[in-house]
Structure formats: structure tokens, C-alpha cells
């Protein structure tokens, strides 16, 4: 059964790029437009992997990750940050919030699929 990935990004073009690429690779993708939307969707359905942008209106990526880790059902779901900020500080923050990894923007679909496959197969 195809795995489901929650893709959270306020940018429609990137969200679409991520979703189309992952769908083409055989995953189900649930899209969310900001952290809050992501959190709501994560509660609505269970997903196998969360990919989230950091800088978003309403709720940013780090807050989303913290919130997700606070939910019983999301304690072990892998979460990757898709971010343009690759500073050590940001990585440390992401790690502290409970992210399992990060993927730096810009990335091409191939790299994204590679990383996702490594994480959830």
C-alpha cells in the first residue's frame, strides 16, 4: 500500500512540485498550506512522513514539529524540514524540536525522492 506523506509549505509552486514528484514516485500526498493546516491534517489522518517548510505564516515549521511530537500518534513518524536555512543553528533548533532530518532548498525532485525513499522506502 502506498505510503502517505504530508507536505506542508506555504508556497503553492513548491508544494505542487513536491506533491507531483512524490505522487509520480508512487506516494500519496496530503498537502497543507501552513503549520496550523498541517497540524489539522495530521490529526485528521495518519501519515508515514511529514515534510515541512520552516518559514510559513500562522504557524512555522518548528512549531508544527513540536506540536506533532506532542501528539501521541506522531511521536515516531519521521519528520523532515525542507528549508533554505541550512545554518547549524537552524539544524540544532530543528533537531531539538524533534525533526529527523533536513533537506535544503533548492532541491530537485530526484534528490527529494531519494531522501524520502531512504526514510520510508
Amino acid at each position, binding site marked *: *500500500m502506498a505510503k*502517505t506523506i504530508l507536505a506542508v509549505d*506555504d*508556497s*503553492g*509552486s*513548491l*508544494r*505542487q*512540485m513536491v506533491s*507531483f*514528484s512524490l505522487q*509520480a*514516485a508512487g506516494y500519496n500526498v*496530503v*498537502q*497543507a*498550506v501552513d503549520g496550523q*493546516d498541517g497540524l489539522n*491534517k495530521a490529526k*485528521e*489522518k*495518519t501519515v*508515514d512522513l511529514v515534510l515541512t*517548510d520552516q*518559514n*510559513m*505564516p500562522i504557524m512555522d515549521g518548528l512549531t508544527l514539529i513540536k506540536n506533532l511530537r506532542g501528539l501521541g*500518534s506522531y511521536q*515516531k*513518524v*519521521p519528520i*523532515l524540514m525542507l528549508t*533554505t536555512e*541550512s545554518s547549524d543553528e537552524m*539544524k540544532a533548533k*530543528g*533537531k531539538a524540536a524533534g*525533526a*529527523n*532530518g*533536513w*533537506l*535544503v*532548498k*533548492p*532541491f*530537485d*525532485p*530526484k*534528490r527529494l525522492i*531519494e*531522501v524520502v*525513499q*531512504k*526514510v*520510508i*522506502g
Partner: protein
Amino acid sequence: MPIDMSQFYEVFFDESEELLAEAERLLLEINIENPDIEELNAIFRAAHSIKGGAATFGMMNMTEITHVLENLLDKIRKHELALTSEHVDAFLAAKDVLKMMVDGHRLGSDVDAKMVADVKMQLSALSEKSGASLSKPAPATAASAPVVGPPPAVEAPAAIAAAPVEVQAAADGLKRFDIELPETSEKDVANLQEELGLLGEVVSAKRADGRYVFTLTTDSTPADIISICSFVFDPDSLVIRDASTPGIPAPEAPAPTPTPTPETESQSRVEIHEEVGYGLFSLPGKENEEEGYGLFAPFTPHPDAIEAGAAAPGDSTTAEPVTPAVTENANPGTNAILENQEKKNLGRRETDKAPASAETTSIRVGIEKVDQLINLVGELVITQAMIEQRSSTLDPVHHEKLINSIGLLTRNTHDLQESVMSIRMMPMDFVFSRFPRMVRDLAGKLNKKVEFVTLGATTELDKGLIERIVDPLTHLVRNSVDHGIETPENRRAAGKDEVGKLTLSAAHKGGSIVIEVTDDGAGLNREKLLAKAQKNGLPVSENMTDSEVHQLIFAPGFSMAEIVTDVSGRGVGMDVVKRNITSMGGMVEIRSALGYGTTISISLPLTLAILDGMSVSLGQNIYVIPLNLIVETMQPKMEDIKTVTNEGLMVHVRGEYLPIIPLYALFKQDTEITHPTEGVLIIIEAEGKKAALFVDTLVGQQQVVIKSLETNFKKIQGVSGATIMGDGSVALILDVPAIIKMGQHNQPQGVHQ
């Protein structure tokens, strides 16, 4: 599988335009002394999102600008830097440049390199001003490389070795790139070397494994290099590295993996390959910097993934570090997966009932599909009208049910037509949103203070009209700022607030939309207008009403500006404004009071697809005349008709003599009514000229659906389109301005006196 990135471009362009418009709106409203943090965040996010998209979709010119912009904004929102009006100006200029770049990518329009350079300079000047607080006043390439890890250790020798070259290259404004080619024939290498030679100086070196490395010194961007190389190689198989800034991989390189310079090649080759090869999961805490991603431990890899990963080429060297992590976490991992799968089954059921998510509430369709739909509905309305007309002769007792059903059909058809028409409707905000910026810039240029207000921005108008109203409206707003609103000194002297108020409003009134540009400026001066008109040789009299006097400003070549400014006032314009609006089937009106201001009111039909027309008959045929171009209709008396030598017949209407244009002669139609006193004269007006169109009779006033004659048949002079009448017959819609022109050259001789 390859994924075509270009499919996302349109979305990215639209998104960028929206973000830019939003950022501009926020910038215009921002309180410079005490900026709202939420607004700053929103502007920052706009720059950030565009940067992310531009980098992903390879639009590097946009990445550079947004990167600098983002840096500055970040400082400001973190209070490291105080916002100044200079910043706002620079940000607005950057917005314009970005918009230009979006258009450049999207429509292939020109990107003004000078403007880009100016803005870049402006931004970097501001960055430098922020002094030490800005850690890296980023050079062009570093700016376009938003994601750069620290240089790996193995790079150190290379960096040192490259240093002298770097200094030299930097002095020339040149950059040095190392281009590592995949295995290929000598011929390809030679070809490519020649091609790259066009960009700059190329040095080729053959490595021990038989692969070539070019060192190119050039002022071109990596994107240029890639585009040249892509004629010969799959760009993904190339490794391009900016050697003039050691340790920073060229951002456009598909695999931002550092390539060793020839000097250190042998020593670092092994590491490089490990880095290129897809290492699975890094050891706890270690990230694959060069890969652009990292996975923190403890991490639960999927069991399948390990096999998949291990099978991938180049994995062998890095597979080892992974194993411990996997072993440690194997059990919790499996549990998590099982747990997930159970939940997923649960989740599935819930999803079915879940409401449509936000991103599915709007869809994007091509305008031609919508037009096709509108066209079909137009046909349906006509068919329905035919059925209705034919059913009117039926006996209502015998056919009661049929007649009821037809009534229902009528209602449904009209509802359908209304809904379909609404698809093409767009909010006026689409036009209005461009004005705050323009007013701000103009007011600044003219040293005036203007408060700009828009009302009714949500009012909807047909897309076609929206696009065509932009130019006239721009002209009117510009005029109001330039000529309407006075300088602060003059306003104070007149006892007014020194800040002038300019209002742009839109509202529905009946079947049309009314757009008004109102200023509280000096107003139109009747005496000056009259004097000026007289000087220009226009027919004027002291008895003219105010409204007639105001209409004078629409006369060609008429300008009220006492000094011609570079903003407006060259006397071209208002007549063009009026002509544009008339051609859209609209009307312009002026209301003005000296000392209190001026309102210019435009009324437009809601849509271009339907026309309010007067149908007239000529012999066997029906013609439709746009109602907004008809001044009046009359049945002339014998004494009103005069013959003027070389001018043909004229009719005397309210003090003026108008040429009579007999439609039957113009269109060479047969009719029994050949003298104006037997038929009807329709006084038409277009482009400031009036004429009396002579037809047989009036048939009635009605809305007609416009069909293009040009696309279905061919262009005919004097006819702007066609429509299908209720009885199924085709009627031609007259092109009034063309008919007035034709009438001037085509005075028939055979009209009976």
C-alpha cells in the same frame, strides 16, 4: 523518473506575482517609524518564498535579488536595523525588478539590465550601510547560493592552491569554475571546449581516470555554463564548482558537490566519491552537508530503504556507518511502522468523510475554455428564446404542460447564463491594486501630499474589460494627482488640509459598473476652459452648461495644464481615454466644482459578451446599433432637411447640422423608404463626431449576445459583429465609428429631395 519542472512554472509565476503585489501593498502602508512586526514578517516571507521557488526552478536572476532583499528584511524584522524610507524605496524598486524578471521568464519580455544593476547596487549599498551587522555583504554568486555548507576539510588545500587565481579573477570581475565532465569521447570534449571558449578562457586537464576537468575563467553564470554543456551532456552528469570562492559550490550545479582542483585531485578523489555516492544515514549528529540534506539520529529507517539504498551506485563506501543506527533502532522502527499501518486503515475511513481541503477549492482553467462555455451558453439562450417565441402561438389550454416546462427552461437558462458569465468576472482590485504605488511615486515626484483611498475593490467586472480599463484609469489617476490636487502650499492657502485626497471607487449601478476617480483638488475652471477652447478653435459659447464645458477636456489636443509636466499635460490623453471607454461600450462623465475637486465617472457594461442594442430595420434585414452610441432618434420634417453642395443631405437638429447617412445606400440594400421624412433618423455619436443614420423603422431595444463576424466569416467594414435574434435570424451589429467615417466619404447622389 524524470520530472518536468516547467509544469510548475506557471504556478510559481502566479504565486510570485501575488506575493509581490502583497509585499508592495504592505510596503506602501507600512509605518516607517514603527513598523508592524507581522507586516515585516509577511514581507520577509514573500521575499523568502520567491527566493525558494526561484532557486528550485532555476531562475537565478531572481534568487540573487531576493537573497539580498531577504537579508535586509531579516535584519529589520529582528530590529538589528531600523527601517527607513530609503529601504522602502529600494524594496519597492526590487519588487519592480522582480516583477520584470517574472515577466521575462514567463512572457519572454525584456529585462532591463540597467534597472537590475541599479537595484542591486541600491540594495547592496543599504546592506553595506548596515555595516558590521551584515555578516557577509554577499557577492553575486554567494548571494545566489542560499544553501551553502561550510567547506569540507578536504577542500582546504584546494582553497589555498586556488587563492592566487581567485585574487586575480576577482580583480577582473571574473570567476573561475571547475567543470568535471562525465566519461565521454575526445571529440565531445573538444567541441565543448570550443563552445565554452566563447564564454571565457578554458583550460582542459585530463585526470587519471580518463575524465576531463575544464577550468573556465569567465564572467558568465553557472547557468550559462550548464546551458552550453547541456548540448553535449546530461546536465545532471556534470559537476560545476565555483573555484573563485573556495568551498562554496556553484549554486546552479545540479549536484553541488565540490570537485577537487587538479592539484589536489589524487588525494581527495576517494572522499569526493563517497560524498557523491549516496550515503544512507549518517552517524548520529553528522549530516551530509554536501548532499544538502541530513538525517538526525536516532532515526528509524524503513527496512526496504536499506536494501534500496544499498543497491544504489556508490553506496558501498558509506553503507557501513548506517548499519549501527539501523540495528539500534530496528525494533522501535518496526513497531512504529505497524502502528502506522493500523492507523492508516483508520485514517482512510475518516478521509472519506473529510471536507474538501483548502487547496482544492479553486481550479485553474484556460480562458479559452471559459469563452467556449460562454459562447455555448449564448447559443443556448438564443435557442431558448426561439422556443419561447414559437410556443407563444400555441394554445395555452391544449399545451399547458409544455408551456409550463418552457417557462422553467427560460428561468434555468437565465440562471445558467448568469453563473457562466460570472466565471469571467474579476474583482476590480486587480486594477486598483496597482494605483497606491503609482500615486505614491507621483506624489513624491511632484512634492504633493496625497491620501489614496479605494472603495469597492471587490466589485466584479468582466476580465476583458478589466484589462482594457487599466490604461484609461491610469491616465485619469495621473491627471488627478498632477492637475487636480494642489501643492501643499496652495492647499494651505486655500484653507484646505495640505494632504489631498484621491478616491478610486467602483460600484454596480443597474446593469453597469461605475468607476469613479475623485479628487478634492482645485476643480475645473470654467472660464479658463472656455478661453482655452476658444484659443484652440473649438466651438464654444457662454451659454454652454457646466457639463458641456467640462466635456471640452475630451476634445483632441486639449490640455488644461498650464505647465506641461513630464507626468501629464501634453494634451494627448483625455480624448484617448474617452475613445477607449466608448469603444468598450462605456461612457465618461465629469462633475467638478471650482475649489472643491473633480470627479470623473466612467460607466461600463458588465460584460463585453452582451450588448444593449437598438434594433432597426432596413428592407428585409434587421441591424443592431449599440445603445450607448445613440444620442436620440427622430422623424424629421421636410424643412429640417437641407442639401449642402458636396456634403449631401444634412439635417438640422437642435442648432446643428448633421450629415445624413442613408444606411441602405451605404450597404446597398433594397428598401422602399428612400427619403428621410419617410423613415427614422438615428443620431449617433462616436469619437466626438455626430451623424444622422437613416433607417426604415425602429424595431426595439434589447440585449444581444455578440458573435464575432471576423472569426466566423470575415471582417466587413461598418459591421462590428453579429447576433442571433429571437426568431433565429442573424442581425448585424453596426460599427458606429466606422459608419460615421464611411458616411463622410460616401455621400450618395441618388437621394430624393
